């Protein structure tokens, strides 16, 4: 790939020896004009200017009907993503059976029930009101009450949460009043989410609704201060494949205490006193920044962006946390841990890298992983030709600096924004204005995320809400060495003889976070891109020379 020099506007950028603008034009040409106009704004050729300024990308907009995207619904984001990984809340899906069935233990969030005294773990269960005709016609509140009662009688949980699916919003069930009533009756925390699938444009709306709900109903219920000198929360880490376990291991080694994780390996008790932590560290900005913002306003806990995907990113994030606390003891300890962990990682990388160097990857996943994983590929000497999010917003692409410019469309307007005020008693700014200013002067960024695009090379294609058909076109045109997405894309891409790494479920591998995770990932990618299975794609008797990269879109 000819790397384009920065800011030489006269020079034509190329991507993998092709003209990315032309590739884009060819793909757009297949769409009806109106669709092409819309997609064009979500399909951007990267160019990083001064201060990390990048082209504008349209994101968080409704998928055009008939285009097969990767996105799920609001309910999936609320129930599946944010609250699913919490083991000791009973999650009841209020709706017909499918929605609950399909979200039943299909994400690979790991959890350790032993770490809470009651040992509750309801993640292997799927509770649903399984609405029938009768409820659709006469309303489902009665059945919902029964379902809550049954769940309580059978399991005696600490909390029950109710998630509404599409039909519920239409038949007009008031899940919140049912929850209030049952909360009173049962004496445990019962709360509901109006996360009907048609709200918003993707899972993202559900994340927001989940954040609001946890904040309203759970955060701040327990003021006990956990022991520990450096107490933080890790936000937006869902413990896929044991990622959170690896990060916990590193934190423990450094002497950093985790009050709560949102929401990998989590318990509702930890959410309840998470406001007592002294710092919020955000992994996946998209899914959880709302809780961090609200916690800061109400309780004075500042937040920073971290990334534990990639060994060097991990080291950088640890240093950032140490710098925030500013205690020499912690700074030294963190350096010691990094010095202890890195050699093994670097040895593994050096062994693998000759076989991965120069390979070309594409990543289309989530609202942060498409960015974070570029770190690991960089460590392997691989290039990212194209990347995009499934449900990211503009700030996840271009950085939070664009927040004031984001236009709120009709789909997002109806997602509630909570008005949060300082807690009169419990607000406690964790860090003085002077110290904050001092840190900022030294280049420390609070409440900031720079986004994915400033870190990508010029000419790379950044594509929001990639469709299945566009996936096929990219594969045909570029024949990348590796494609990263999810299970829905996996088998189509592999039909073309190109390996697909699932970055939602990790292909049942992992962890990939932290130091040990990086080593795992190097080996896994080496195995995938160099597997002999691809050699057999061409049968020995099949003498046809391989068709040159065909350019036509069909």
């Amino acid at each position: 790939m000819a790397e384009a020099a920065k800011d030489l506007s006269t020079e034509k950028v190329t991507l993998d020896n092709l003209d990315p603008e032309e590739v884009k034009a060819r793909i757009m040409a297949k769409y009806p004009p109106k669709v092409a106009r819309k997609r064009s704004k979500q399909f951007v050729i990267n160019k990083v200017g001064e201060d990390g300024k990048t082209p504008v990308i349209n994101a968080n907009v409704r998928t055009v009907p008939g285009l097969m995207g990767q996105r799920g619904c609001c309910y999936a984001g609320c129930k599946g993503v944010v609250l699913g990984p919490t083991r000791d809340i009973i999650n009841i899906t209020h709706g017909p059976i499918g929605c609950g069935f399909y979200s039943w233990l299909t994400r690979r969030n790991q959890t350790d029930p032993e770490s809470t005294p009651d040992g509750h773990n309801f993640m292997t269960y799927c509770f649903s009101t399984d609405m029938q005709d009768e409820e659709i016609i006469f309303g489902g509140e009665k059945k919902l009450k029964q379902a809550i009662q049954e769940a309580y009688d059978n399991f005696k949980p600490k909390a029950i949460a109710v998630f509404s699916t599409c039909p519920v919003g239409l038949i007009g069930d008031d899940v919140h009043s049912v929850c209030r009533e049952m909360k009173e009756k049962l004496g445990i925390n019962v709360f509901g989410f109006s996360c009907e699938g048609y709200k918003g444009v993707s899972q993202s709306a559900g994340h927001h609704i989940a954040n609001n709900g946890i904040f309203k109903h759970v955060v701040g219920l327990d003021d006990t201060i956990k022991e520990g000198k450096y107490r933080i929360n890790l936000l937006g880490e869902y413990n896929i494949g044991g990622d959170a376990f690896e990060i916990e291991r590193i934190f423990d080694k450094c002497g950093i205490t985790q009050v709560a994780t949102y929401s990998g390996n989590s318990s509702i008790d930890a959410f309840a006193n998470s406001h007592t932590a002294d710092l919020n560290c955000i992994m996946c900005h998209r899914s959880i920044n709302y809780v961090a913002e609200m916690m800061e306003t109400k309780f004075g806990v500042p937040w920073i962006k971290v990334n534990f995907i990639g060994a060097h990113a991990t080291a950088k994030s640890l240093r950032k946390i140490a710098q925030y606390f500013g205690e020499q003891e912690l700074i030294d300890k963190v350096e010691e841990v990094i010095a202890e962990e890195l050699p093994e990682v670097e040895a593994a990388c050096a062994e693998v890298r000759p076989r991965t160097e120069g390979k070309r990857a594409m990543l289309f996943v989530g609202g942060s992983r498409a960015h974070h994983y570029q770190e690991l590929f960089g460590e392997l000497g691989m290039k990212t030709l194209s990347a995009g999010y499934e449900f990211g917003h503009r700030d996840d692409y271009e950085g939070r600096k664009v927040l004031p410019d984001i236009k709120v469309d009709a789909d997002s307007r109806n997602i509630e924004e909570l008005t949060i005020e300082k807690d009169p008693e419990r607000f406690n700014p964790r860090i003085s204005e002077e110290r904050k200013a001092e840190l900022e002067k030294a280049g420390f960024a609070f409440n900031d995320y720079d986004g994915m695009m400033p870190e990508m090379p010029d000419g790379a294609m950044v594509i929001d809400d990639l469709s299945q058909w566009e996936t096929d076109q990219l594969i045909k045109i570029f024949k990348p060495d590796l494609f990263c997405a999810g299970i829905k894309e996996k088998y189509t891409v592999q039909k073309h003889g190109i390996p697909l790494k699932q970055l939602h479920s990790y292909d049942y591998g992992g962890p990939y976070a932290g130091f040990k995770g990086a080593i795992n990932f190097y080996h896994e990618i080496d195995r995938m891109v160099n597997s002999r299975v691809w050699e057999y794609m061409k049968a020995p008797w099949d003498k046809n020379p391989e068709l040159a990269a065909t350019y036509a879109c069909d």
Partner: protein
Amino acid sequence: MKFAGKTDNYAATQNACNLCSPLGAALVFKGVSNCVPLLHGSQGCSTYIRRYMISHFKEPMDIACSNFGEHTAIFGGGANIKLAIDNIRSQYSPELIGIATTCLSETIGDDVPMFIRSYKEECEDKENLPALVHVSTPSYQGTHMQGFHGAVRALVETLAEAAETGDKPLLNLFPGMVSPSDLRLLKEIAADFGMEPVLIPDYSDTLNGPLWTEYQRIPEGGTTIEAIKSTGGAAASLECGMILAGEPETAGTWLDKKFSVPAHRIGLPIGIRETDKMMDILAEVSGNPIPDKYLGQRGRLLDAMVDGHKHLNGVKAALFGEEDLVAGLAAFCSEIGVIPALCATGGGAGRFEKTIKSVVPERIHRKMEIMEDVDFVTIEKALEKTGVDLLIGHSKGYAMSRRLKTPLLRVGFPVHDRVNGSRTLHLGYRGAQQLFDRIVNKIIEIKQDRSDVGYTYM
């Protein structure tokens, strides 16, 4: 339609044993050549359903949706469905778009047939218009099986013509929800009888295909529209599924009524008796004797059954899953001497108990528990009391199998924790042979593992 009141004890469902209707419909549409399924509703359903089927079949699975937003949910999805059809056409140029509804569009009462009519009227290039087939699939009225059979019927009702037949007699085959390997086997059998099978659906290639040497816009394979049209001129229809046979109107009965194509109805041909029945019907319809090949298969199967029988004395199994599959497995179990001590389904057609009793010898009835319209929590409770040696069903039974420490033999759908979901053979003598071998080997394995000595000579 399901019975109100999930079980004796519970109103809600914990760990369901059935899936939702549009899934079944989408699967059927994947079995039609050059077809794109379209779910009319919000995008979550189609994403979930795609993902779910992909994790079983491990194949490309494109399902479009009309992507409702809040506005659409209030004002109806007419504009969305038209836009979706336009965009599917521009990307995929399909010959057929199979449209199924979700609970959302059903709840608001969208009139999809009317949308389709007006799309057709307004369409400017009528000669290139793909066939548009609609099936109504509210999940609050049935399971994935209602969606499946409904889509089969919709295809036939929309497309079948009083066609002329070619040289070979045509046989309409409505196999039910079976594996790609099963479909391949059925086609082979029909062809061996000298008949031209029209299988609806036929996803044996689209959902179990080879790697591609060239890009395929829509994976190759499936029953062609021409073939579906010709069902009106077939010599006979063979419809599999005893539960299905209780439906007032099916693809088979419709063709019988409309085009006088005689409908033969059997259970899923699992095991000796039901496969024999199928062979007899095919011999009669085709006028050809049963090919020697099958007599050989049957003979070898019986021989294996006689030889392996000693391991099955007193063995009890619990069967769960889709109604017709469980009925077929129950019949098979009784043939080989395994007691189907518990038969359970999440389906609620209302004919389950009677059907099961009709395929299992009467002396076993009182030792059996038959549970219709139940979830896994209820099944597990019953099993705690009953106690069986083996569970036979799909992957969702794994949690139960783990807690009860009873091995699970995976059959049917969904199987997302093994790699061979789409290759499992259930039907015909060959399917019976494979099932038999798997069951017996599992029992031997259990005995072997539990023995202190560790015999290898069994």
